[in-house]
């Protein structure tokens, strides 16, 4: 056990936990005002459901010994997860740190189903998905599963978190179908400052996500930290140039998106490549995501907040480039294509394909299963038009409180105020 490592991992865990509310604001700003609370709640709900599912079962399925495909139940209900060391930090801390990853991965999918999914169906989906889809893939890569044995490099979750969430998002968007206004009306962000705020806080939290994945306060953590700073910076610059070239104006939503794309892309590579390579990786990663963002709205795929473009495509580019740019003199473990290990790229591609395939199939099964018991979408007509905040939560994000009549607990109902009704409306 090492005090410095423990101290850093305590901070890193809190940083990663902050990413989920940050994601809520990133997504919340991109939807219409009438769905702002619902979208934020989709992220906040993961802080409850997924955290408890992880502690009770998910952690064991992902990190207990088990086999190549899945852990076992030996750590379920946190049995044997105590104060003894796991690596150089307490086992409970390792469990909590990994739990924050499960939370944000599940919350990422919400971007594909906003403005139409029934909240209670979403809560069940989130919980089951974190156990059935996230935990096995985490086991493959980090729990001693088959992708780890194969030698796939995934420093902080390019495949486990981002390719996984991206594939799940596509399937979820297809399963639910597009919003009723999609492709018929302009659906615009209602609060771009929220989106920028969310992107900024995501970046801050991502230092815990990537540098924390070194699982200690050491030189690899410092490398991952610096790469997490430089790669999104390069993505931001390239995105800016693409915006300038296409429309002559640099957009704020574009900048927020670029930061997330850069962060996603550096995630698998953070502790494996040099800072100079991180700049290259960040810059290159802007291109495929930028063009996916432009292409997607022309299709009937209502992946509303572009989870595919940011996380699926960004994660794939990052994972593949990890296999190109990895350098043993920096990471001490593996080289990539440019440094004499050409086969590493193939291993990376296999990892991405396996994660995407399993995630897509698993997500489809979870949603099909849920659909047997309950509707997945809010009732139409009415609910989608008037917004999910009032319909699903009985609250408004920006209510003025005017015209609200207090319902007293034991009062006889319907204290109507006829004087308040404008005469014209009664005619």
């Amino acid at each position, binding site marked *: 056990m090492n005090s410095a490592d423990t101290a850093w991992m305590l901070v890193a865990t809190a940083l990663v936990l902050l990413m989920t509310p940050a994601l809520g604001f990133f997504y919340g700003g991109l939807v219409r005002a*009438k769905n702002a609370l619902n979208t934020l709640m989709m992220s906040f709900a993961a802080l409850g459901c997924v955290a408890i599912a992880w502690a009770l079962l998910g952690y064991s399925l992902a990190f207990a010994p088990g086999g190549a495909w899945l852990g076992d139940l030996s750590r379920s209900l946190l049995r044997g997860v105590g104060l003894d060391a796991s690596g150089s930090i307490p086992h409970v801390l390792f469990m909590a740190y990994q739990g924050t990853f499960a939370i944000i991965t599940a919350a990422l999918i919400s971007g594909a189903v906003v403005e139409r999914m029934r909240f209670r169906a979403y809560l069940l989906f989130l919980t089951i998905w974190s156990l059935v889809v996230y935990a096995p893939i985490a086991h493959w890569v980090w729990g001693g599963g088959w992708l780890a044995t194969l030698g796939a490099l995934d420093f902080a979750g390019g495949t486990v978190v981002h390719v996984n969430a991206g594939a799940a998002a596509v399937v979820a968007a297809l399963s639910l179908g597009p919003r009723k*206004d999609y492709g018929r*009306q*302009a659906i615009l962000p209602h609060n771009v400052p929220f989106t920028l705020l969310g992107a900024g806080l995501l970046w801050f939290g991502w230092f815990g996500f990537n540098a924390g994945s070194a699982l200690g306060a050491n030189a690899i953590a410092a490398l991952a930290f610096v790469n997490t700073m430089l790669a999104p910076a390069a993505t931001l610059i390239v995105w800016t140039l693409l915006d300038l070239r296409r429309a002559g104006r640099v957009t704020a939503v574009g900048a927020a998106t670029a930061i997330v794309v850069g962060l996603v892309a550096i995630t698998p590579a953070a502790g494996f490549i040099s800072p100079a390579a991180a700049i290259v990786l960040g810059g290159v990663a802007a291109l495929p995501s930028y063009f996916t963002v432009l292409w997607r709205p022309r299709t009937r795929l209502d992946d509303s907040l572009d989870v595919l473009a940011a996380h699926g495509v960004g994660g794939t580019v990052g994972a593949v480039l990890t296999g190109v740019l990895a350098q043993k003199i920096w990471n001490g473990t593996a080289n990539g294509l440019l440094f004499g290990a050409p086969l590493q790229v193939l291993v990376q591609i296999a990892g991405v394909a396996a994660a995407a395939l399993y995630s897509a199939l698993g997500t489809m099964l979870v949603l099909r299963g849920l659909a047997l018991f309950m509707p997945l979408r809010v009732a139409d*007509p*009415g609910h989608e*038009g*008037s*917004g999910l905040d*009032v319909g699903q939560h*009985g*609250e*408004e994000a920006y*209510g003025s409180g*005017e*015209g*609200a*009549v*207090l*319902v007293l607990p034991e009062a006889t109902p319907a204290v109507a*105020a006829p004087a*308040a*009704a*404008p005469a*014209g*409306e009664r005619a």
Partner: protein
Amino acid sequence: MKLVLAIIRPEKLTEVLEALFRAEVRGLTINRVQGHGGETERVETYRGTTVKMELSEKVRLEIGVSDHFVEPTVRALLRAAQTGEVGDGKIFVLPVERVYRIRTGERDEAAVTPVG
């Protein structure tokens, strides 16, 4: 000349604008308003406080039109703003005494005829 005053659901505004433009009605003003009609009130809860929201968000359109444009305007509004549920709103057609276009000083019919 008439003033067509319509109160509609906010989520129907885009459809209504499209219908009006298709009917070649191009001059209008909109306002976000709150009103009370026949719809059942929404119940909202904030911690221990439960309230009935007596006022609903609506959009009010004011459209000054010459007489032969009244029917097309009203028809476009009826078609585009309707959901069939209580709370779709109202259309009022009011007489107008005089209209001026500020830019030119044109009056009445000329003032509400779109610039060709």
